Protein backbone atom coordinates (compact mmCIF):
# COMPACT_ATOMS: atom_id res chain seq x y z
CA UNK A 1 0.00 0.00 0.00
CA UNK A 2 2.95 2.36 0.66
CA UNK A 3 3.43 2.41 -3.10
CA UNK A 4 0.13 4.21 -3.52
CA UNK A 5 0.65 6.88 -0.84
CA UNK A 6 2.76 9.20 -3.07
CA UNK A 7 0.02 9.03 -5.73
CA UNK A 8 -2.43 10.13 -3.06
CA UNK A 9 -0.20 13.10 -2.20
CA UNK A 10 -0.04 14.13 -5.84
CA UNK A 11 -3.82 13.63 -6.14
CA UNK A 12 -4.42 15.98 -3.21
CA UNK A 13 -2.13 18.59 -4.78
CA UNK A 14 -3.71 18.33 -8.22
CA UNK A 15 -7.28 18.23 -6.93
CA UNK A 16 -6.60 21.17 -4.66
CA UNK A 17 -5.24 23.18 -7.54
CA UNK A 18 -8.06 22.22 -9.91
CA UNK A 19 -10.88 22.85 -7.43
CA UNK A 20 -9.29 26.15 -6.37
CA UNK A 21 -9.00 27.33 -9.98
CA UNK A 22 -12.51 26.31 -10.94
CA UNK A 23 -13.95 27.67 -7.70
CA UNK A 24 -12.21 31.02 -7.89
CA UNK A 25 -13.16 31.59 -11.54
CA UNK A 26 -16.56 33.27 -10.85
CA UNK A 27 -14.98 35.77 -8.43
CA UNK A 28 -11.92 36.95 -10.35
CA UNK A 29 -13.70 38.05 -13.49
CA UNK A 30 -16.29 40.76 -14.04
CA UNK A 31 -19.98 39.86 -14.11
CA UNK A 32 -22.03 41.83 -16.61
CA UNK A 33 -25.48 40.35 -17.04
CA UNK A 34 -26.73 39.79 -20.55
CA UNK A 35 -29.51 37.45 -21.58
CA UNK A 36 -27.81 36.25 -24.74
CA UNK A 37 -24.62 35.37 -22.89
CA UNK A 38 -26.47 32.89 -20.72
CA UNK A 39 -27.86 30.96 -23.67
CA UNK A 40 -26.16 27.88 -25.02
CA UNK A 41 -23.83 28.84 -27.84
CA UNK A 42 -25.10 27.95 -31.29
CA UNK A 43 -23.34 30.47 -33.51
CA UNK A 44 -25.87 33.20 -32.83
CA UNK A 45 -29.10 31.41 -33.61
CA UNK A 46 -31.73 30.68 -30.96
CA UNK A 47 -30.53 27.67 -28.95
CA UNK A 48 -32.22 24.35 -29.58
CA UNK A 49 -34.20 23.35 -26.48
CA UNK A 50 -32.48 20.40 -24.82
CA UNK A 51 -34.55 17.94 -22.80
CA UNK A 52 -33.88 17.74 -19.07
CA UNK A 53 -31.51 14.89 -18.26
CA UNK A 54 -29.88 14.87 -21.69
CA UNK A 55 -31.30 14.22 -25.12
CA UNK A 56 -30.86 11.48 -27.65
CA UNK A 57 -27.58 10.72 -29.32
CA UNK A 58 -26.58 8.48 -32.23
CA UNK A 59 -26.53 4.80 -31.36
CA UNK A 60 -23.14 4.42 -33.06
CA UNK A 61 -21.43 5.80 -29.98
CA UNK A 62 -23.07 3.20 -27.78
CA UNK A 63 -21.90 0.40 -30.08
CA UNK A 64 -18.37 1.83 -29.97
CA UNK A 65 -18.49 1.84 -26.19
CA UNK A 66 -19.68 -1.79 -26.12
CA UNK A 67 -16.91 -2.87 -28.49
CA UNK A 68 -14.45 -0.98 -26.33
CA UNK A 69 -15.48 -3.06 -23.35
CA UNK A 70 -15.00 -6.31 -25.31
CA UNK A 71 -11.50 -5.35 -26.36
CA UNK A 72 -10.61 -3.85 -23.01
CA UNK A 73 -11.36 -7.18 -21.40
CA UNK A 74 -9.19 -8.87 -24.01
CA UNK A 75 -6.37 -6.49 -23.06
CA UNK A 76 -6.87 -7.26 -19.39
CA UNK A 77 -6.22 -10.92 -20.22
CA UNK A 78 -3.30 -10.12 -22.51
CA UNK A 79 -1.31 -8.11 -19.95
CA UNK A 80 -0.77 -10.78 -17.29
CA UNK A 81 -0.15 -13.31 -20.07
CA UNK A 82 2.57 -11.08 -21.55
CA UNK A 83 4.21 -10.53 -18.16
CA UNK A 84 4.24 -14.23 -17.32
CA UNK A 85 5.00 -15.37 -20.85
CA UNK A 86 8.46 -16.75 -20.12
CA UNK A 87 7.06 -19.03 -17.43
CA UNK A 88 4.07 -20.16 -19.48
CA UNK A 89 6.01 -20.87 -22.64
CA UNK A 90 4.39 -22.63 -25.56
CA UNK A 91 1.31 -23.65 -23.60
CA UNK A 92 0.51 -20.01 -22.85
CA UNK A 93 1.01 -19.09 -26.47
CA UNK A 94 -1.42 -21.73 -27.74
CA UNK A 95 -4.01 -20.76 -25.15
CA UNK A 96 -3.73 -17.07 -25.99
CA UNK A 97 -3.91 -17.64 -29.73
CA UNK A 98 -7.11 -19.63 -29.19
CA UNK A 99 -8.49 -16.77 -27.11
CA UNK A 100 -7.51 -14.12 -29.67
CA UNK A 101 -9.09 -16.15 -32.47
CA UNK A 102 -12.31 -16.40 -30.45
CA UNK A 103 -12.41 -12.63 -30.03
CA UNK A 104 -11.54 -12.21 -33.70
CA UNK A 105 -14.64 -14.18 -34.67
CA UNK A 106 -16.77 -11.62 -32.84
CA UNK A 107 -14.70 -8.86 -34.40
CA UNK A 108 -15.20 -10.25 -37.92
CA UNK A 109 -18.93 -10.53 -37.26
CA UNK A 110 -19.15 -6.91 -36.16
CA UNK A 111 -17.14 -5.81 -39.18
CA UNK A 112 -19.36 -7.85 -41.48
CA UNK A 113 -22.51 -6.34 -39.99
CA UNK A 114 -21.07 -2.88 -40.61
CA UNK A 115 -20.69 -2.22 -36.91
CA UNK A 116 -17.37 -0.51 -37.53
CA UNK A 117 -18.60 1.75 -40.33
CA UNK A 118 -19.53 5.40 -39.93
CA UNK A 119 -21.76 6.93 -42.52
Amino acid at each position, binding site marked *: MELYVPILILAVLAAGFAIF*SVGIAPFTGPARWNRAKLDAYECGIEPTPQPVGGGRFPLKYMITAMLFIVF*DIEIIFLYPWAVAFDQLGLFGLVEMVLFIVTVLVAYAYVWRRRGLDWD
Partner: protein
Amino acid sequence: MTTMLAGPIGPSLADFGKDPWWISLIKAVFIFVFLMLGVLFGVWTERKLISRMQNRYGPNRAGKFGLLQSVADGLKMGLKEDLMPRTVDRVVFFLAPVIIAVPAFLAFSIVPFGPMVSMFGVQTPLQLTDLPVAVLFVLAMASMGVYGIVLAGWGSRSPYALLGGLRSSAQVISYEIAMALSLVAVFLFAGTLSTSEIVNAQAAGGTWEIGGLSIPLPSWYVVMLFPSFLIYVVTMLGETNRVPFDLPEGEGELVGGFHTEYSSSLKFAMFMLAEYVNMFTVSALAITMFFGGWQAPWPISLWDGANTGWWPMLWFFGKLVIAFCFFVWVRASLPRVRYDQLMALGWKLLIPISLAWIVLVATVRALRLEGGDRTLVMAMLGVIVVVIGVLYYAFDTSRERKKKDQQAQVREEFARLRNEPTAGGFPVPPLDLPHYHGVSSRPAVTRADSKEVTSEAKV
Protein backbone atom coordinates in the same frame (compact mmCIF):
# COMPACT_ATOMS: atom_id res chain seq x y z
CA MET B 1 21.92 -17.76 -28.41
CA THR B 2 21.71 -14.52 -26.52
CA THR B 3 23.38 -13.75 -23.28
CA MET B 4 22.28 -10.90 -21.10
CA LEU B 5 24.91 -8.44 -20.04
CA ALA B 6 24.90 -6.68 -16.70
CA GLY B 7 24.34 -3.05 -17.62
CA PRO B 8 23.67 0.08 -15.63
CA ILE B 9 20.94 -0.97 -13.29
CA GLY B 10 18.45 1.51 -11.94
CA PRO B 11 16.04 1.05 -9.10
CA SER B 12 13.61 -1.86 -9.19
CA LEU B 13 10.20 -2.28 -7.66
CA ALA B 14 11.73 -3.26 -4.31
CA ASP B 15 13.28 0.20 -3.92
CA PHE B 16 9.92 1.96 -3.79
CA GLY B 17 7.61 2.59 -0.90
CA LYS B 18 10.50 3.32 1.47
CA ASP B 19 10.58 7.10 1.21
CA PRO B 20 9.76 9.19 4.25
CA TRP B 21 6.62 11.26 3.70
CA TRP B 22 8.49 14.51 3.16
CA ILE B 23 10.56 13.04 0.32
CA SER B 24 7.33 11.92 -1.34
CA LEU B 25 5.93 15.41 -0.82
CA ILE B 26 9.01 17.00 -2.41
CA LYS B 27 8.73 14.67 -5.39
CA ALA B 28 4.99 15.27 -5.76
CA VAL B 29 5.47 19.04 -5.63
CA PHE B 30 8.30 18.72 -8.13
CA ILE B 31 6.12 16.77 -10.58
CA PHE B 32 3.31 19.27 -10.13
CA VAL B 33 5.57 22.27 -10.75
CA PHE B 34 7.34 20.45 -13.59
CA LEU B 35 4.04 19.85 -15.35
CA MET B 36 2.72 23.37 -14.75
CA LEU B 37 5.89 24.99 -16.07
CA GLY B 38 5.99 22.40 -18.82
CA VAL B 39 2.53 23.43 -19.96
CA LEU B 40 3.38 27.15 -19.81
CA PHE B 41 6.54 26.80 -21.83
CA GLY B 42 5.15 23.95 -23.91
CA VAL B 43 2.43 26.22 -25.25
CA TRP B 44 5.06 28.86 -25.98
CA THR B 45 7.36 26.33 -27.68
CA GLU B 46 4.53 25.01 -29.78
CA ARG B 47 3.36 28.44 -30.93
CA LYS B 48 6.88 29.63 -31.62
CA LEU B 49 7.92 26.48 -33.48
CA ILE B 50 4.77 26.24 -35.56
CA SER B 51 5.10 29.92 -36.45
CA ARG B 52 8.60 29.38 -37.70
CA MET B 53 7.43 26.41 -39.74
CA GLN B 54 4.79 28.65 -41.30
CA ASN B 55 7.14 31.56 -41.98
CA ARG B 56 5.93 33.92 -39.25
CA TYR B 57 7.26 35.12 -35.91
CA GLY B 58 4.73 33.86 -33.42
CA PRO B 59 4.38 35.46 -29.99
CA ASN B 60 7.19 37.98 -29.46
CA ARG B 61 5.71 40.78 -27.34
CA ALA B 62 5.34 39.47 -23.79
CA GLY B 63 8.83 39.15 -22.33
CA LYS B 64 12.01 38.22 -24.13
CA PHE B 65 11.15 36.15 -27.25
CA GLY B 66 7.55 36.20 -26.05
CA LEU B 67 8.50 33.77 -23.29
CA LEU B 68 5.90 35.20 -20.92
CA GLN B 69 3.09 34.83 -23.45
CA SER B 70 1.54 31.83 -21.70
CA VAL B 71 1.76 33.55 -18.32
CA ALA B 72 -0.05 36.54 -19.79
CA ASP B 73 -2.67 34.25 -21.34
CA GLY B 74 -3.18 32.47 -18.03
CA LEU B 75 -3.65 35.78 -16.19
CA LYS B 76 -6.06 36.95 -18.85
CA MET B 77 -8.11 33.78 -18.48
CA GLY B 78 -8.30 34.38 -14.76
CA LEU B 79 -9.67 37.89 -15.31
CA LYS B 80 -12.30 36.82 -17.84
CA GLU B 81 -15.98 36.66 -17.02
CA ASP B 82 -16.98 33.19 -15.94
CA LEU B 83 -20.17 32.34 -17.77
CA MET B 84 -22.46 29.56 -16.71
CA PRO B 85 -25.27 29.17 -19.24
CA ARG B 86 -28.74 28.85 -17.71
CA THR B 87 -29.42 25.42 -19.11
CA VAL B 88 -26.33 23.57 -17.86
CA ASP B 89 -26.29 20.90 -15.19
CA ARG B 90 -24.46 22.98 -12.58
CA VAL B 91 -22.76 20.23 -10.56
CA VAL B 92 -21.51 18.33 -13.59
CA PHE B 93 -20.49 21.53 -15.33
CA PHE B 94 -18.42 22.49 -12.30
CA LEU B 95 -16.88 19.05 -11.76
CA ALA B 96 -15.94 18.17 -15.34
CA PRO B 97 -12.78 20.35 -15.51
CA VAL B 98 -11.61 18.91 -12.19
CA ILE B 99 -12.28 15.33 -13.31
CA ILE B 100 -10.29 15.87 -16.48
CA ALA B 101 -7.33 17.65 -14.86
CA VAL B 102 -6.61 15.43 -11.83
CA PRO B 103 -6.04 12.08 -13.63
CA ALA B 104 -3.86 13.88 -16.16
CA PHE B 105 -1.49 14.82 -13.32
CA LEU B 106 -1.73 11.44 -11.62
CA ALA B 107 -0.64 9.54 -14.70
CA PHE B 108 2.75 11.20 -14.42
CA SER B 109 3.43 9.78 -10.95
CA ILE B 110 4.93 6.53 -12.25
CA VAL B 111 7.23 8.09 -14.86
CA PRO B 112 10.87 7.32 -14.09
CA PHE B 113 13.03 10.45 -14.20
CA GLY B 114 16.29 8.80 -13.17
CA PRO B 115 18.13 6.23 -11.03
CA MET B 116 18.82 6.26 -7.30
CA VAL B 117 20.09 9.58 -6.01
CA SER B 118 20.87 11.00 -2.62
CA MET B 119 18.24 13.58 -1.71
CA PHE B 120 18.97 15.40 1.58
CA GLY B 121 20.91 12.36 2.75
CA VAL B 122 18.20 9.86 1.79
CA GLN B 123 18.83 7.34 -0.99
CA THR B 124 15.76 7.48 -3.17
CA PRO B 125 14.83 6.76 -6.80
CA LEU B 126 14.09 9.74 -9.05
CA GLN B 127 10.50 8.66 -9.51
CA LEU B 128 7.49 9.47 -7.39
CA THR B 129 6.40 5.87 -7.08
CA ASP B 130 6.23 2.63 -9.00
CA LEU B 131 3.54 -0.03 -9.01
CA PRO B 132 3.53 -3.66 -10.10
CA VAL B 133 0.80 -2.50 -12.51
CA ALA B 134 2.25 0.92 -13.35
CA VAL B 135 1.42 0.99 -17.06
CA LEU B 136 -2.08 -0.24 -16.35
CA PHE B 137 -2.38 2.68 -13.95
CA VAL B 138 -1.52 5.14 -16.73
CA LEU B 139 -4.15 3.60 -18.99
CA ALA B 140 -6.67 3.71 -16.14
CA MET B 141 -5.98 7.40 -15.60
CA ALA B 142 -6.39 8.05 -19.32
CA SER B 143 -9.79 6.35 -19.09
CA MET B 144 -10.71 8.51 -16.11
CA GLY B 145 -9.97 11.57 -18.24
CA VAL B 146 -12.64 10.36 -20.69
CA TYR B 147 -15.22 10.82 -17.92
CA GLY B 148 -14.29 14.49 -17.83
CA ILE B 149 -14.83 14.78 -21.58
CA VAL B 150 -18.18 12.96 -21.53
CA LEU B 151 -19.47 14.86 -18.52
CA ALA B 152 -18.37 18.23 -19.90
CA GLY B 153 -20.27 17.51 -23.12
CA TRP B 154 -23.27 16.04 -21.34
CA GLY B 155 -23.55 18.67 -18.61
CA SER B 156 -23.35 21.58 -21.06
CA ARG B 157 -26.71 20.66 -22.60
CA SER B 158 -25.92 22.16 -25.94
CA PRO B 159 -25.83 20.27 -29.25
CA TYR B 160 -22.26 21.23 -30.11
CA ALA B 161 -20.92 20.26 -26.72
CA LEU B 162 -22.86 16.98 -26.64
CA LEU B 163 -21.69 15.92 -30.10
CA GLY B 164 -18.14 17.05 -29.40
CA GLY B 165 -18.07 15.15 -26.13
CA LEU B 166 -19.38 11.96 -27.72
CA ARG B 167 -16.98 12.19 -30.62
CA SER B 168 -14.03 12.85 -28.37
CA SER B 169 -14.78 10.02 -26.02
CA ALA B 170 -15.46 7.56 -28.84
CA GLN B 171 -12.13 8.53 -30.38
CA VAL B 172 -10.17 8.29 -27.15
CA ILE B 173 -11.53 4.88 -26.17
CA SER B 174 -10.99 3.54 -29.70
CA TYR B 175 -7.38 4.60 -29.75
CA GLU B 176 -6.84 3.45 -26.20
CA ILE B 177 -7.41 -0.15 -27.30
CA ALA B 178 -4.78 0.08 -30.02
CA MET B 179 -2.42 1.86 -27.61
CA ALA B 180 -2.82 -0.81 -24.95
CA LEU B 181 -2.29 -3.54 -27.56
CA SER B 182 0.84 -1.88 -28.93
CA LEU B 183 2.43 -2.05 -25.48
CA VAL B 184 1.86 -5.79 -25.03
CA ALA B 185 4.97 -6.65 -27.04
CA VAL B 186 7.06 -4.54 -24.65
CA PHE B 187 5.71 -6.50 -21.67
CA LEU B 188 6.47 -9.74 -23.46
CA PHE B 189 10.12 -8.76 -23.60
CA ALA B 190 10.41 -6.93 -20.30
CA GLY B 191 8.32 -9.41 -18.32
CA THR B 192 6.91 -6.71 -16.09
CA LEU B 193 4.45 -3.83 -15.99
CA SER B 194 6.52 -1.72 -13.65
CA THR B 195 8.05 1.27 -15.40
CA SER B 196 11.35 1.29 -13.53
CA GLU B 197 11.95 -2.35 -14.39
CA ILE B 198 11.03 -1.78 -18.03
CA VAL B 199 13.73 0.90 -18.11
CA ASN B 200 16.16 -1.56 -16.52
CA ALA B 201 15.25 -4.21 -19.07
CA GLN B 202 16.38 -1.84 -21.82
CA ALA B 203 19.76 -1.28 -20.20
CA ALA B 204 21.56 -4.04 -22.03
CA GLY B 205 20.51 -5.83 -25.15
CA GLY B 206 22.85 -8.76 -24.87
CA THR B 207 24.91 -10.16 -27.71
CA TRP B 208 24.14 -12.37 -30.63
CA GLU B 209 26.78 -15.04 -31.24
CA ILE B 210 26.98 -16.00 -34.89
CA GLY B 211 29.91 -17.82 -36.37
CA GLY B 212 32.36 -16.80 -33.70
CA LEU B 213 31.38 -13.13 -33.98
CA SER B 214 29.49 -11.46 -31.17
CA ILE B 215 27.21 -8.70 -32.39
CA PRO B 216 25.76 -6.45 -29.68
CA LEU B 217 22.00 -6.30 -29.92
CA PRO B 218 20.35 -2.90 -29.60
CA SER B 219 18.96 -2.33 -26.16
CA TRP B 220 16.07 0.04 -26.76
CA TYR B 221 12.77 -1.56 -27.66
CA VAL B 222 12.20 0.96 -30.43
CA VAL B 223 14.66 -1.01 -32.57
CA MET B 224 13.44 -4.48 -31.71
CA LEU B 225 9.74 -3.66 -31.65
CA PHE B 226 9.56 -1.00 -34.31
CA PRO B 227 6.02 -1.89 -35.52
CA SER B 228 4.77 -1.58 -31.94
CA PHE B 229 6.37 1.83 -31.76
CA LEU B 230 4.74 2.97 -35.01
CA ILE B 231 1.31 1.91 -33.77
CA TYR B 232 1.99 3.64 -30.47
CA VAL B 233 2.90 6.90 -32.21
CA VAL B 234 -0.35 6.93 -34.19
CA THR B 235 -2.40 6.08 -31.13
CA MET B 236 -0.70 8.67 -28.96
CA LEU B 237 -1.75 11.35 -31.44
CA GLY B 238 -5.30 9.96 -31.39
CA GLU B 239 -5.38 9.55 -27.63
CA THR B 240 -4.44 13.17 -26.95
CA ASN B 241 -6.81 14.58 -29.59
CA ARG B 242 -3.96 16.18 -31.48
CA VAL B 243 -3.60 16.95 -35.19
CA PRO B 244 -4.27 15.03 -37.43
CA PHE B 245 -6.87 13.52 -35.10
CA ASP B 246 -8.15 16.72 -33.47
CA LEU B 247 -11.73 16.08 -34.53
CA PRO B 248 -13.20 17.16 -31.18
CA GLU B 249 -11.89 20.63 -31.88
CA GLY B 250 -13.01 20.59 -35.49
CA GLU B 251 -13.84 24.27 -35.13
CA GLY B 252 -15.39 24.40 -38.58
CA GLU B 253 -18.14 22.02 -37.54
CA LEU B 254 -18.32 21.82 -33.76
CA VAL B 255 -17.04 25.23 -32.54
CA GLY B 256 -14.99 24.01 -29.57
CA GLY B 257 -16.33 20.50 -29.17
CA PHE B 258 -16.99 19.42 -25.60
CA HIS B 259 -15.73 22.69 -24.08
CA THR B 260 -17.88 24.99 -26.25
CA GLU B 261 -19.86 26.24 -23.25
CA TYR B 262 -16.79 26.87 -21.12
CA SER B 263 -16.06 30.52 -21.75
CA SER B 264 -12.39 31.41 -21.69
CA SER B 265 -12.12 31.46 -17.92
CA LEU B 266 -10.09 29.31 -15.56
CA LYS B 267 -12.44 26.40 -16.23
CA PHE B 268 -11.36 26.42 -19.85
CA ALA B 269 -7.76 26.69 -18.64
CA MET B 270 -8.21 23.32 -16.91
CA PHE B 271 -9.10 21.65 -20.23
CA MET B 272 -6.12 23.28 -21.90
CA LEU B 273 -3.87 22.18 -19.04
CA ALA B 274 -5.14 18.60 -19.18
CA GLU B 275 -4.56 18.43 -22.92
CA TYR B 276 -0.93 19.44 -22.63
CA VAL B 277 -0.27 17.32 -19.55
CA ASN B 278 -1.69 14.35 -21.45
CA MET B 279 0.73 15.09 -24.25
CA PHE B 280 3.62 15.01 -21.79
CA THR B 281 2.31 11.79 -20.30
CA VAL B 282 2.07 9.89 -23.58
CA SER B 283 5.49 11.23 -24.59
CA ALA B 284 6.96 10.11 -21.28
CA LEU B 285 5.35 6.72 -21.72
CA ALA B 286 6.83 6.43 -25.21
CA ILE B 287 10.25 7.29 -23.84
CA THR B 288 9.92 4.79 -21.01
CA MET B 289 8.59 1.99 -23.17
CA PHE B 290 10.62 2.41 -26.33
CA PHE B 291 13.52 4.81 -25.79
CA GLY B 292 15.19 3.45 -22.70
CA GLY B 293 13.62 5.90 -20.27
CA TRP B 294 16.20 8.11 -18.59
CA GLN B 295 19.18 6.24 -20.02
CA ALA B 296 21.69 8.22 -22.00
CA PRO B 297 21.58 7.91 -25.79
CA TRP B 298 24.49 6.28 -27.57
CA PRO B 299 27.35 8.81 -27.85
CA ILE B 300 26.79 10.05 -24.30
CA SER B 301 26.39 6.54 -22.93
CA LEU B 302 30.08 5.86 -23.63
CA TRP B 303 30.85 8.15 -20.69
CA ASP B 304 30.78 6.06 -17.51
CA GLY B 305 28.95 8.57 -15.36
CA ALA B 306 26.16 9.14 -17.87
CA ASN B 307 23.63 6.92 -16.14
CA THR B 308 24.37 7.84 -12.55
CA GLY B 309 23.32 10.60 -10.21
CA TRP B 310 21.20 13.46 -11.45
CA TRP B 311 22.39 13.43 -15.08
CA PRO B 312 19.69 11.01 -16.36
CA MET B 313 17.06 13.63 -15.60
CA LEU B 314 18.68 15.79 -18.27
CA TRP B 315 18.58 12.98 -20.85
CA PHE B 316 14.97 12.32 -19.97
CA PHE B 317 14.13 15.98 -20.33
CA GLY B 318 15.90 16.13 -23.70
CA LYS B 319 13.93 13.15 -24.95
CA LEU B 320 10.71 14.74 -23.71
CA VAL B 321 11.48 17.97 -25.60
CA ILE B 322 12.16 16.00 -28.78
CA ALA B 323 8.89 14.10 -28.40
CA PHE B 324 7.01 17.35 -27.84
CA CYS B 325 8.59 18.91 -30.92
CA PHE B 326 7.46 15.86 -32.86
CA PHE B 327 3.85 16.66 -31.88
CA VAL B 328 4.33 20.22 -33.13
CA TRP B 329 5.97 19.04 -36.33
CA VAL B 330 3.05 16.71 -37.04
CA ARG B 331 0.62 19.56 -36.36
CA ALA B 332 2.40 21.80 -38.84
CA SER B 333 2.55 19.11 -41.52
CA LEU B 334 -0.66 17.11 -41.59
CA PRO B 335 -4.25 18.05 -42.36
CA ARG B 336 -7.11 16.83 -40.21
CA VAL B 337 -8.64 13.46 -41.12
CA ARG B 338 -12.36 12.84 -41.51
CA TYR B 339 -14.22 11.22 -38.63
CA ASP B 340 -15.08 8.00 -40.47
CA GLN B 341 -11.46 7.72 -41.62
CA LEU B 342 -10.33 8.19 -38.04
CA MET B 343 -12.55 5.42 -36.71
CA ALA B 344 -11.73 3.14 -39.64
CA LEU B 345 -8.01 3.59 -39.01
CA GLY B 346 -8.40 2.80 -35.34
CA TRP B 347 -10.75 -0.16 -35.58
CA LYS B 348 -9.99 -1.74 -38.94
CA LEU B 349 -6.27 -1.23 -39.23
CA LEU B 350 -4.47 -0.58 -35.93
CA ILE B 351 -6.27 -3.18 -33.82
CA PRO B 352 -5.89 -6.17 -36.19
CA ILE B 353 -2.30 -5.23 -36.99
CA SER B 354 -1.46 -4.95 -33.29
CA LEU B 355 -3.02 -8.33 -32.57
CA ALA B 356 -1.18 -9.98 -35.45
CA TRP B 357 2.09 -8.41 -34.35
CA ILE B 358 1.59 -9.61 -30.77
CA VAL B 359 1.01 -13.16 -31.96
CA LEU B 360 4.09 -12.97 -34.18
CA VAL B 361 6.33 -11.62 -31.42
CA ALA B 362 5.02 -14.17 -28.94
CA THR B 363 5.61 -16.99 -31.43
CA VAL B 364 9.18 -15.94 -32.06
CA ARG B 365 9.81 -15.65 -28.36
CA ALA B 366 8.25 -19.03 -27.65
CA LEU B 367 10.43 -20.52 -30.38
CA ARG B 368 13.51 -19.11 -28.69
CA LEU B 369 12.43 -20.38 -25.30
CA GLU B 370 11.46 -23.86 -26.37
CA GLY B 371 14.30 -24.31 -28.78
CA GLY B 372 13.42 -27.81 -30.01
CA ASP B 373 9.71 -28.02 -30.70
CA ARG B 374 9.61 -25.80 -33.75
CA THR B 375 7.35 -27.81 -36.03
CA LEU B 376 4.30 -27.34 -33.81
CA VAL B 377 4.80 -23.58 -33.67
CA MET B 378 5.41 -23.38 -37.39
CA ALA B 379 2.30 -25.43 -38.11
CA MET B 380 0.27 -23.16 -35.87
CA LEU B 381 1.66 -20.08 -37.56
CA GLY B 382 0.76 -21.59 -40.93
CA VAL B 383 -2.81 -22.26 -39.77
CA ILE B 384 -3.13 -18.67 -38.57
CA VAL B 385 -1.86 -17.27 -41.86
CA VAL B 386 -4.28 -19.48 -43.82
CA VAL B 387 -7.22 -18.49 -41.60
CA ILE B 388 -6.41 -14.80 -41.99
CA GLY B 389 -6.10 -15.25 -45.75
CA VAL B 390 -9.45 -17.03 -46.01
CA LEU B 391 -11.14 -14.41 -43.85
CA TYR B 392 -9.71 -11.61 -45.92
CA TYR B 393 -10.77 -13.33 -49.14
CA ALA B 394 -14.33 -13.76 -47.87
CA PHE B 395 -14.43 -10.13 -46.81
CA ASP B 396 -13.01 -8.90 -50.04
CA THR B 397 -15.34 -10.87 -52.31
CA SER B 398 -18.44 -9.91 -50.36
CA ARG B 399 -17.38 -6.28 -50.36
CA GLU B 400 -16.73 -6.33 -54.09
CA ARG B 401 -20.12 -7.92 -54.70
CA LYS B 402 -21.85 -5.28 -52.62
CA LYS B 403 -19.99 -2.52 -54.40
CA LYS B 404 -20.98 -3.93 -57.80
CA ASP B 405 -24.62 -4.26 -56.73
CA GLN B 406 -24.67 -0.71 -55.53
CA GLN B 407 -23.06 0.61 -58.71
CA ALA B 408 -25.56 -1.32 -60.85
CA GLN B 409 -28.39 0.13 -58.80
CA VAL B 410 -27.10 3.66 -59.24
CA ARG B 411 -26.67 3.14 -63.00
CA GLU B 412 -30.15 1.72 -63.33
CA GLU B 413 -31.66 4.61 -61.39
CA PHE B 414 -29.74 7.14 -63.42
CA ALA B 415 -30.85 5.55 -66.68
CA ARG B 416 -34.47 5.59 -65.52
CA LEU B 417 -34.45 9.18 -64.35
CA ARG B 418 -32.13 10.76 -66.90
CA ASN B 419 -34.85 12.08 -69.17
CA GLU B 420 -37.35 13.11 -66.54
CA PRO B 421 -37.45 16.83 -65.73
CA THR B 422 -38.80 16.05 -62.28
CA ALA B 423 -36.57 13.22 -61.17
CA GLY B 424 -38.62 10.74 -59.17
CA GLY B 425 -41.05 13.45 -58.10
CA PHE B 426 -38.39 15.90 -56.88
CA PRO B 427 -38.26 19.20 -58.74
CA VAL B 428 -34.83 19.22 -60.36
CA PRO B 429 -33.84 22.12 -62.63
CA PRO B 430 -32.56 21.08 -66.04
CA LEU B 431 -28.79 21.32 -66.00
CA ASP B 432 -28.24 22.74 -69.48
CA LEU B 433 -30.19 26.01 -69.51
CA PRO B 434 -28.50 28.66 -71.66
CA HIS B 435 -27.91 31.10 -68.82
CA TYR B 436 -25.72 28.53 -67.04
CA HIS B 437 -23.29 28.96 -69.91
CA GLY B 438 -23.21 32.75 -69.83
CA VAL B 439 -25.75 33.17 -72.66
CA SER B 440 -28.36 35.76 -71.79
CA SER B 441 -31.74 34.66 -73.07
CA ARG B 442 -34.61 36.99 -73.87
CA PRO B 443 -36.86 37.33 -70.82
CA ALA B 444 -40.14 37.03 -72.73
CA VAL B 445 -39.18 33.70 -74.29
CA THR B 446 -37.93 32.30 -71.03
CA ARG B 447 -41.15 33.18 -69.33
CA ALA B 448 -43.19 31.53 -72.05
CA ASP B 449 -40.92 28.44 -71.92
CA SER B 450 -41.20 28.08 -68.20
CA LYS B 451 -44.95 28.46 -68.39
CA GLU B 452 -45.06 25.71 -70.92
CA VAL B 453 -42.93 23.43 -68.75
CA THR B 454 -45.02 24.02 -65.64
CA SER B 455 -48.24 23.44 -67.49
CA GLU B 456 -46.80 20.22 -68.87
CA ALA B 457 -45.74 19.11 -65.44
CA LYS B 458 -49.18 19.80 -64.09
CA VAL B 459 -50.73 17.72 -66.81
